């Protein structure tokens, strides 16, 4: 079972390695990790997707709290949060395939951010299933490069 957890930490040097070190040391697997500052620049928010059962989630949460720089940890279940990810994907393209790729981009509301003679780069955003769906369709053209930010998430206003 995958969990999305949000960790609010002091925005200080070394904090990222404390958090990532904790996951590896305790044997928890990070599927993705996204970090950035919050509305308060002295704080960072890490959104971590991790696989594990309820007991794992509880241990992870407690161990994260144990780090001196951790202010808050919360689980963000899919039904109580908005989740999104940004993906840049460079697909092989030629005159023939360009039209079809553009159509796929439109359907998935992806932005075409770069067009070159032999490739196109699309910017996809949205939930995992949507992003995965788009990537699947694009594979047949040949994915040259792909980069994902990892999931970010916020609690829904109604769940606060």
């Amino acid at each position, binding site marked *: 079972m995958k969990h999305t957890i949000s960790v609010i*930490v002091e925005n200080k040097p070394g904090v990222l390695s404390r958090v990532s*070190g904790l996951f590896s040391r305790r044997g928890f697997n990070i599927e993705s990790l996204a970090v950035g500052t919050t509305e308060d620049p002295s704080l960072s928010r890490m959104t971590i997707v991790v696989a594990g059962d309820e007991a794992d989630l509880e241990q992870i949460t407690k161990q994260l709290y*144990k780090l*001196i720089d951790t202010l808050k940890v919360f689980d963000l279940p899919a039904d109580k949060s908005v989740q999104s990810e940004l993906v840049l994907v460079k697909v092989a393209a030629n005159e023939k395939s360009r039209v079809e790729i553009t159509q796929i981009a439109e359907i998935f509301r992806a932005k075409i951010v770069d067009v070159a003679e032999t490739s196109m780069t699309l910017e996809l955003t949205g939930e995992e299933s949507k992003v995965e769906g788009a990537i699947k369709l694009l594979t047949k053209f040949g994915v040259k490069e792909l980069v994902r930010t990892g999931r970010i998430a916020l609690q829904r206003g109604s769940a606060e």
Partner: protein
Amino acid sequence: MQLTGAQALLESLHREGVEIIFGYPGGVVLPLYDAMFADKRVKHILVRHEQGAAHAADGYARATGKVGVCLATSGPGATNLTTGIANAYMDSIPMIAITGQVATSLLGRDSFQEADVTGITMPIAKHSYLIKKVEDLPRIMKEAFHIARSGRPGPVVVDIPKDIFVNKLEYKYPDQVDIPSYKPRTEGHPKQIALAIKAIQAAKKPIIYAGGGVISADASSELKELAEKCNLPVTTTLMGIGAFPETHELSLGMLGMHGTAYANYAVTECDLLIGIGARFDDRVTGHIAKFAPNAKIIHLDIDPAEIGKNVRVDIPIVGDVKKVLQALLAKIGPKEKHAPWVDQITEWKKKYPLAYKQAETIKPQYVIEQAHELAKERDTIIVTEVGQNQMWAAMFYQFTKPRSWISSGGLGTMGFGLPAANGAQFGRPDALVIDFAGDGSIQMNIQELTTAVNNRLPIKIFVLNNCFLGMVRQWQELIYDRHYSHTNLCNNPDLVKIAEAYGAVGMRVSKPAEVRSAIEKAFAINDRPVLVDFVVAKEENVFPFVPPGQAINEMIID
């Protein structure tokens, strides 16, 4: 006032009440040592290896309850501290490790004697700081001490680049600490306490399992009060030794891999296990699924992350052990003797006492018993190395007071005993400090004899010399078909001569009849360390023994 970083550091140590630090100089800490030349308010003890500094600070902290402080230079000095830092971390000992670092301008360039100390110590310290601006030094020192001693105590590393020692600042020491992200919870939840009381009252076969947290929370008297009020038998972990008097009729001694048979049977049979300041370590639980299989579990601990880490817990209580026990004692009524349970335990105690057989050669257990006989009236601190010596000391010495037992529990660090004994003796100059050692372990930090001699520390080092890495040999005997692979120490140096070369007193004893008088002689020396080389039975085993992976009631008893 205007101070250099070095002066500010010494000033901060002084304001934190630090009386003594254990250290070793080197290039980048020269400015600090220079400041110490002028400011002698904090006593500096020159050790002979940085590992010795860390263990001495640790032993000092365990003996006194204060924060121990050690100091090393950058690079190899700092890496030599790491075993000691890890040791303190595993046993939750409050400690500050100050390390010099290359100048900020040289950081990250693989400069001479540069090591990423905050990186290296991340998983083995409670917290760490790299000071990058001299103005931050007072606040960081204040925070470091606060973090080291509050909540679940532990070592904090403060890494200080050379230029920070030299730069000047307008010094002001903060009176208060404010770390928004660090607020340990100390009060137990009243609802949980009420649940615990109910469970205790309902239990037919209750038992308390007490760990080192009772000692660090200074809660031994509360523990005793609870045990007596509700007739609860008490077993302790290795770290919990001294938390409850072993002479008490409710005492079951230690549990776990080398626990008493009656403690292990009682834990296996109990219907309520009250874990207090303990962490359900694998050396305690054995096969975890078969640990206390019929019991409801109450777990009281200051560290929320300990709850549910290793075993399922029915009634968790997060809080300071002392405060929670006080709150619990205020509400709980006395409890009947649950006679059948007490009778059962008494029967186990009679049937399976700790025992060993006397022989022509000296039995190590006998040395410990005799030392206990002769030391029990005095304020005594027993320190140990690691291995069989440690287990026999835990089993055959009868501890009655907290902070009278100092041993490397979680990390099991050979070489801990001698420097820790030094630290303990510095902390409690009037106490009788005995280090029970193995002939392997004692050689791991033997250089610290110099520190003891130079400071006229009258510590007693009792080597139980079996010419083996005894505990490993025991496993080889019992689990690996007596394949004594690389555990024979028959070419040991002459430890008596070594002691003498260092300026300590050395003695050798090989007959049981001489043991007592040798101990008396050693106790009478009070101006320098004594090493007594007890030539003991070579292949004596520590029993009971729960083979790894077995349930704790599946012991080999003899």
